[in-house]
């Protein structure tokens, strides 16, 4: 008996590596800040990718290949990101995921374009899940870049549509981080408001250094003095948390229209004073009606990572679309997968999304959500969460913008 068992064991030991050698691992390098002021935000993103990969792996992986997510800390520095990119490529990574910081995404796109040109057959594909500078899907569009989040202009379009219906808003203050993304948000806000509500006065248009301001009170003070009726901000990470923290402690009670008010840590900083006042434009909030399977997914995620909340639906969209594209192409080669992704339609629990073929920008429905209390799902155990009502949904097709992209394909 004993001999049979050991023989069986030996057989297993021998066959398992052989079996594994048949299938490759699809390595995805997650290049984002994992330390510093934006570390918490990057870390939350990493855990969403990890969870999405776990789900795909449990379901036979991508074309039978297991997905592995490898985190690389870029300290939100474009130069450091290029070093991490090289490190990832050296480890045999062919897929890059990044989202925090359009400055970083910009550097990565350039580097990946160059790498792919110089190393035919070893192409690398960039899955952008959050860097929303519109330029990446317009003048600087690349065949190797796919954006799974709506860009800054699309979100601002939704936001300004909402503002246009509020006649009581007459003065708007725009504040953002001083880099490409913050500038894109400010330009979009000023341009679109002038078009939709020419009577609105922009009483402030301010850029502050990225991740350097620890006390926003002087900025809030300025907003109060300007008598703004609403504030528009693209801030994220610590800059978002500290901005609303200062606003709350100074009692600045006007609507805050944000891109990332739902980001990690913001809810706890905002508290009671922000209820009904802080809005967020995003592809999803966790209190939307969803099929049971999605509820189970969110529960599973929040059970596994108890200290953060489910936030990036688009990470799951990106992972599942990558899986579907690989199936369609019957390959895990980035070039073939990229062609399969172009024009792909995918049914998410929140409706259909489409990856535009002409500029690689996703079209997904957007929601204007309001910070509230007493809803089904709260954020980070604070008792506060995000809800949206009638008329807060912008259909996917309506988010489409004209593009200046002239895609060159291999």
């Amino acid at each position, binding site marked *: 008996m004993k001999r049979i068992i050991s023989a069986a064991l030996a057989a297993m030991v021998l066959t398992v590596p052989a079996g594994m050698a048949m299938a490759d691992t699809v390595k995805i390098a997650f290049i984002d800040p*994992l*330390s*510093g*002021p934006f*570390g*918490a935000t990057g*870390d939350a993103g990493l855990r969403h990718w990890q969870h999405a990969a776990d789900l795909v792996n449990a379901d036979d992986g991508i074309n039978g290949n297991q997905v592995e997510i490898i985190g690389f800390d870029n300290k939100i520095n474009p130069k450091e990101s290029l070093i991490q990119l090289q490190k990832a490529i050296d480890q045999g990574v062919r897929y890059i995921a990044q989202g925090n910081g359009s400055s970083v995404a910009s550097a990565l796109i350039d580097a990946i374009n160059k790498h792919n040109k110089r190393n035919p057959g070893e192409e690398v594909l960039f899955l952008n899940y959050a860097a929303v500078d519109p330029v990446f899907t317009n003048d600087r569009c690349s065949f190797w870049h796919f954006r799974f989040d709506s860009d800054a202009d699309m979100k601002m379009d939704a936001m300004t549509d909402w503002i246009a219906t509020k006649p009581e808003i007459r003065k708007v203050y725009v504040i953002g981080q*001083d880099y490409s993304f913050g500038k894109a948000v400010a330009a979009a806000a000023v341009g679109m408001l002038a078009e939709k509500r020419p009577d609105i006065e922009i009483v*402030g248009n*301010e*850029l*502050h*250094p990225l991740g*350097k301001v*620890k*006390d926003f*009170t*002087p*900025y*809030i*003070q*300025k907003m*109060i*003095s300007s008598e703004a009726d609403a504030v528009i901000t693209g801030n994220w990470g*610590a800059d978002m948390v*500290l901005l609303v923290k200062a606003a709350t*402690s*100074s*009692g*600045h009670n006007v609507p805050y229209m944000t891109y990332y008010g739902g980001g990690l*840590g913001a809810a*706890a900083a905002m508290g009671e004073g922000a209820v009904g006042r802080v809005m967020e434009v995003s592809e999803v909030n966790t209190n939307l009606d969803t099929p049971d399977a999605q509820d189970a997914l969110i529960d599973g995620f929040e059970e596994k990572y108890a200290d953060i909340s489910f936030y990036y639906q688009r990470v799951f969209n990106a992972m599942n679309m990558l899986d579907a594209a690989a199936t369609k192409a019957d390959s895990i080669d980035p070039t073939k997968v990229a062609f399969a992704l172009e024009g792909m339609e995918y049914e998410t629990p929140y409706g259909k999304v489409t990856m535009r073929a002409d500029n690689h920008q996703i079209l997904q429905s957007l929601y204007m959500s309001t910070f509230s209390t007493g809803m089904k799902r709260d954020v980070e155990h604070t008792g506060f969460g995000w809800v949206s009502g009638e008329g807060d949904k912008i259909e996917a097709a309506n988010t489409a913008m004209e593009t200046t992209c002239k895609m060159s394909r291999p």
Partner: protein
Amino acid sequence: METFLFSLLNGVIYGLLLFMLSSGLTLIFSMMGILNFAHASFYMLGAYFAYSFTQVTSFWLALIFAPLLVGLFGAAVERWGLRKVHANGHVAELLFTFGLAYLIDEVVKIIWGKNTVDYQIPAALDFPLFELFGAQYPAYRMFILIVAVAMLAALWFLLKRTRIGLIIQASLTHPHMVGHLGHNVPRIFMAVFGAGCALAALAGVIGGNYLTTEPSMAAFMGPVVFVVVVVGGLGSLEGAFFASLLIGLMQTFAISISASFGDIFGWAGVSPTSELGSITISSLAPMLPFLMLVLVLMVRPNGLMGTREV
């Protein structure tokens, strides 16, 4: 008017916080001639210790014990570290504190993680104190002001009105003479180093929840503190005080000015839409302390009130 008043208040508070940090640094320098690069790291340790204290006990205990602990740690660093290195001269001391700063940085990351910890303002102080021109003023800010002023008064009294202060002042300028009079000069040095670190830690305890508590807070504050000490004059406590307030006020006021170069230098033909003209004064705020550092070193190399060469 309201902008002025609030900027004044916020500027003074930030300035006092800076002074709390830099007073220890300037004391240590004037006494031992050591430019302590790790000083801001003690500030960070203060904030992290306070955070850990508030997890198990209360903020008030943290306010007392976190600076004490860091002070003891600082004294130990002097006794078993710096004193040994001292024999090898100033460069060795500089390198030692430089290395120590990195060491503390890494240890903090290992113990408390790489991300911001949730160090919160105590609930008892988390309310708006008064409302002025439509803006509320948080009570905690006033508390910072009170603690800083109390510390300032205590420090002044200790140095200028007590026997201990007399001996400390004497050993600043004539350490050998003080030694000949039978005082234990190395022990005085150790006490001053520990006290300086405790002051930095106190700034960390009350500043860590007012700003943020994260591993890069030392690297963020470090350069500003050096600016304060150099601008004020190396080794001059009064100078550090005025320089702190000056920098605090300058940074806060700069943020409240919306004018751009184009508006100010329009007469010289700088267009508000040009690259240079679109720079606003408020966006220059983080740069101002360093601009001041360069200017002071050019015009008054001794600093505002310093007597020694830098």
